[in-house]
């Protein structure tokens, strides 16, 4: 009888502990997520608070860099970053999207596709500083380019190739099979179908991936420290001339620069980078949103 009395009491106790544990876990999980948000918020907040005043000073954004004196600007760095982004994208988009078309449209599941995927996974996992070493050994030294725009762009192209390939392949695979069947049924060839039907439908997805890649190119520094100059007073005038991009120059400013206002330049550069990346994120989201709205209409 004692035992029978005991069971409900114990099970009630167990139920209460379970309820307490559930409440505690819920509170802890909320707290963890809010900590993540708070960390992000304070990082962005700090960058903008410290940097906005600097970055919107025309003398800073449109000025010439100074190696020794205070009061330097960052226009050549900005231009270098833009040129670098353009050149890298020109190299990477045809190859990345082409490779994605091959993987999504032509190759089935074979030894070749497994090999390509292994190559892409490997490239995606190799640290960017190792790409920097590779770029130094191959482009800068073996090809004799020296640290320049082209050496940086080629290095970044290889670094970002897996990401462009993956997002493009996902976009291509998201195009409904019925589109392809309809086009093939009308007598179009495989390539015509891809060019006129599949690719246009995948353009928004490919574009979103491309914009995120631009963000990564703008922020990359480890792969560029050995392949491009860290400081230059002029923007590059040709594909094989020097020029320093903003992100690697920010690292240089923090470690090696001797200008008395290095702190101010770092604040301005950090803010400029974050503003550019925030803007790119907004554009990518806007495009994805519009694309979804359009898809909703079709479906």
């Amino acid at each position, binding site marked *: 009888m004692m035992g029978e009395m005991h069971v409900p009491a114990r099970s009630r106790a167990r139920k209460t502990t*379970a*309820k307490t*544990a*559930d409440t*505690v*876990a*819920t509170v802890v*999980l909320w707290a*963890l*997520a809010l900590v*993540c*948000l708070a*960390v*992000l918020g304070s*990082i*962005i907040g700090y960058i903008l608070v410290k940097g906005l005043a600097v970055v919107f000073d025309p003398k800073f954004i449109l000025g010439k860099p100074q190696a020794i004196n205070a009061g330097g600007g960052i226009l050549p760095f900005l231009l270098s970053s833009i040129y670098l982004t353009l050149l890298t994208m020109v190299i990477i988009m*045809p190859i990345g999207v082409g*490779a994605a078309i*091959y993987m999504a449209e*032509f*190759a089935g599941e074979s030894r*070749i596709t497994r090999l*390509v995927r292994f*190559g*892409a996974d*490997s*490239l995606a*996992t*190799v*640290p960017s*500083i*190792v790409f920097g*070493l*590779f770029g130094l*050994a*191959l482009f800068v030294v073996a090809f004799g380019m020296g640290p320049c725009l082209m050496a940086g762009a080629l290095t970044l192209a290889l670094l970002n190739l*897996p990401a462009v*390939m993956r997002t493009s392949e996902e976009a291509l695979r998201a195009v409904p099979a019925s589109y392809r069947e309809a086009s093939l049924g009308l007598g179009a*060839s495989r*390539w015509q179908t891809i060019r006129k039907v599949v690719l246009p439908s995948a353009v928004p997805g490919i574009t979103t991936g491309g914009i*995120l890649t631009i963000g*990564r190119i703008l*922020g*990359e*520094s*480890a792969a560029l*420290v050995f392949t491009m100059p860290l400081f230059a007073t002029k923007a590059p005038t040709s594909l094989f001339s020097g020029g320093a991009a903003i992100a*690697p120059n*920010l*690292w240089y400013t*923090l*470690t090696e620069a001797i200008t008395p206002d290095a*702190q101010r330049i770092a604040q301005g550069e*950090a803010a400029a*980078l*974050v503003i550019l*990346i*925030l803007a*790119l*994120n907004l554009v990518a989201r806007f495009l994805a949103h519009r694309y979804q709205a359009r898809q909703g209409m079709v479906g």
Partner: protein
Amino acid sequence: MTRRDAAAVAKPALNSEWIVRKTLFVFAMTTVLGIILVIFFVARESIPALRQVGWSNIFLSATWNPNVSNPATGHYGLLVPLAGTLAATLGGIIIGGPLAIGTAIFLTQIAPPRTGKLVVRGIELLAGIPSVIFGWIGLVVLVPMLARVTNTQGYGILAASFILGIMIIPTVTTIAKDALETVPEEYKQASFGMGATRWQTIYKVILPSAKEGLLVALILGIGRAIGETMAVQLVIGNARQFPNSLTSVTSTLTSRIVTDMGESTGAFRSALFVQGLVLLIMAMVIILLIRLVTRKTVKAA
């Protein structure tokens, strides 16, 4: 149209399609060619150091004392940066792992839709912040803060761990979230139906069935932390000795490479490529680990 006419029209299309196909194949193979070239060139540049300084003086030595004027006579032991890399990575996972996995659980099991969306957006933004900016904030905010609290200079493993912990959150959370989302809804319903609380369901049903995916998320986070360079270089102190506390200066493989490359020549430079080679091997081990974990899942399924 006669049959011959049809063939005449079809043939050029077939030919150009063959060319297109082969061109796209070559594009796809650039990934394979790329990784082969990376391995080849980093390995090739490592050979002079291994020849002139010797394997044991590099892999079994903790003395880093380069000789700039006569590089072959310097000491290039990599045990200190290797230990620094492992310690900072471990610290990063200890700090960032629970935050990231916890956030993923929150997003898939608890979050109200709007809060969830906000957190996802936040994590996407966090992923976009350049690593040199994390380093800058570490340098001007975190290091002085740690210096005050611990009464040291603030540089070292602890500072690097905090920065890495934050930086791995997007990688780990995104993949962990995907893994948790693949757990079938019926599992959850069955558990609730038996009277389990939400936490019991998460702990006893959802986490065990997403185990492999969560492991992959953490392994990729480790890979990210091992290779992180600029952020770590700015806060670790880049000293040549083993750390004797969490807040004493040391170096990592990546920070050593970036700090010393500028003044290096000959065997000195080559020794830095050896450290790059070690990073490359670590990346390959990460990939193999992930394949091992996911293969097991495929077999089980």
